């Protein structure tokens, strides 16, 4: 009797194996129910956009949509570029470049937030890093704040012409999305 109870026999093996198969089967059936909630094929198909920059003159800006988020694209004037380049990175509230095309540890120089040879163009995800508002500064008449970049009306975060946070409650610089110049007047985001 004692040995019967302690030694696993063939039936014990079948019970454990059968239950294990059923458990694994049930768990794997869960996956489609979870996965269906992830971004679908049509959403993913829109995950990159091409934007023609030729109509944007110096000093002008356009707002595009990428993955449902506003993208700020500004053709900066010479003085705006100089203002962005002359900043001492060590004194910035956030010294990280926040450029998704880079590895993530670069300093927040203007060069690290733009594409070489196209330094007049700044491309940013136009969502304030504080509580997700859309900052002002894209239209000609907008308040741009004291650093000439963008100004968030919600809680007063002020960004410079490189989209870096300079004043206010936002913790991080505006993100630079991954993008590349396909031609001199066309970019592909994503």
């Amino acid at each position: 009797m004692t040995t019967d109870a302690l030694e696993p026999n063939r039936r014990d093996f079948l019970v454990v194996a059968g239950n294990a198969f059923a458990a694994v089967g049930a768990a794997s059936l869960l996956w489609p129910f979870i996965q269906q909630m992830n971004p679908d094929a049509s959403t993913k198909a829109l995950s990159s956009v091409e934007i023609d920059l030729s109509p944007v003159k110096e000093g002008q800006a356009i707002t595009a949509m990428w993955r449902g988020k506003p993208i700020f694209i500004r053709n900066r004037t010479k003085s705006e570029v100089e203002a962005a380049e002359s900043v001492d990175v060590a004194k910035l509230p956030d010294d990280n470049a926040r450029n998704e095309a880079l590895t993530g540890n670069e300093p927040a120089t203007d060069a690290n937030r733009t594409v070489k040879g196209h330094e007049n163009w700044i491309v940013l995800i136009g969502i304030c890093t504080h509580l997700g508002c859309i900052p002002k500064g894209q239209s000609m008449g907008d308040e741009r704040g004291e650093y000439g970049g963008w100004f968030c009306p919600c809680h007063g975060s002020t960004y410079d012409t490189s989209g870096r946070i300079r004043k206010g409650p936002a913790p991080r610089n505006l993100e630079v999305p991954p993008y590349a110049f396909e031609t001199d007047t066309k970019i592909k985001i994503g």
Partner: protein
Amino acid sequence: MGGSTSSYVPTSRWGKWLDERLPIARLMNDSFVDFPTPRNLNYLWTFGGILTVCLIAQIATGVVLAMHYQPSDAAAFNSIEHIRRDVNYGWMLRNLHAVGASMFFFAVFIHIFRGFYYGSYKAPREVLWILGVIILLLMMATAFMGYTLPWGQMSFWGVTVITNLFSALDTIYNGLGTAVVEWLWGGYSVSGVTLNRFFALHYLLPFVLTGVVGLHIWALHVAGQNNPTGLDIKQPSDSVPMHPYATAKDAVGIFAFLILFAWFAFFLPDYLGHADNYVEANPLVTPPHIVPEWYFLPFYAILRAFTSSFLGIPLGQYAKLCGVIAMFSAVIIIAFAPWLDTSRVRSAKYRPIFKWFFWFFVFTCVALGYLGSKPAEGVYVTAAQIFTVCYFLFFLVVMPVVGLIETPKLLPRSITDDVLSKGGAAGLPSGATAAPEAR
């Protein structure tokens, strides 16, 4: 539930036939007619019945609204206006549903504070209490998703801000938070896909809620109702049958509550909402102040109290994560009240020190609600941080410590003694009103 001592006697052959096959009439009789109810329940005990009415009203109005509502980003906003203007009585059904959510929370908050004051969470009602916390969580999830459906500016940006909370998980494991948020959204931002799934869940959750409410009532009927003295029912004269005594009192409470409900629904339907939600959702423009509905304000205040520093403690990049954890903890901690409170006396009537802390806790919750409606800057942030600390201290320090140091007042010997020692019954012989069911 008095199963063995059931007083149910079928009065017809059909009733007897059914009772032998499915004793549902017996269950109803034993649960809601001949159920022994403490004879000293005050009007705060009518909120259970009021909440049942709220739940039924929300499901009834919600089901018919779903017959006219279209859960897509292109049509949702206009379909709400269609309901308000074109659908027969749509204006009324929509107002009852929208106001009903506020009324539901108003009643549930009183119901919860009642539980805190009279110690209804203490043994043997712990499971009953935890089920109540689960009900609160389900109500919050349902209300949050429901508020998305009109697809106005506040709907859209409210969802954006709240779902973005999960991105705080990125500080634990890089990429985890983003993955969770994109899974919730079904895209890379809040979109019609998100709206569609929130509608499906908003329709489902009230029925889950109903199931948990069933368990809540079941647990209540096993442990029996608490009462203002906090004493158990010890003798027949301590209780009265639920019907007609408690049901009649419930009816008075319910009708008084319905007057308030109707006043809001018919005269101030938008008073508790936000004008911004009558502007269609626009992902390119944010409203200047994103504020949740009033019933979420205390929790929103706790969330926002965690800025880059908390009362001088620097939080840095963990600020958001701390805020999210604190907000969820604020609800979860309620479930631990049965074990945090060390006092054996249930009712705060007999707890001179706890009583004051209770009222300070109520003040803390109201203050957090006020601060949640204010912009997150300057003195409001500091105040929200102080009251957030007060909120958690109530559970983590006041409940365990006061129970140990406090000398409770002398408890009455029984519910009957407590009732008879009060003015009106003083001159009567104790047998006269002691057993009203025997009259």
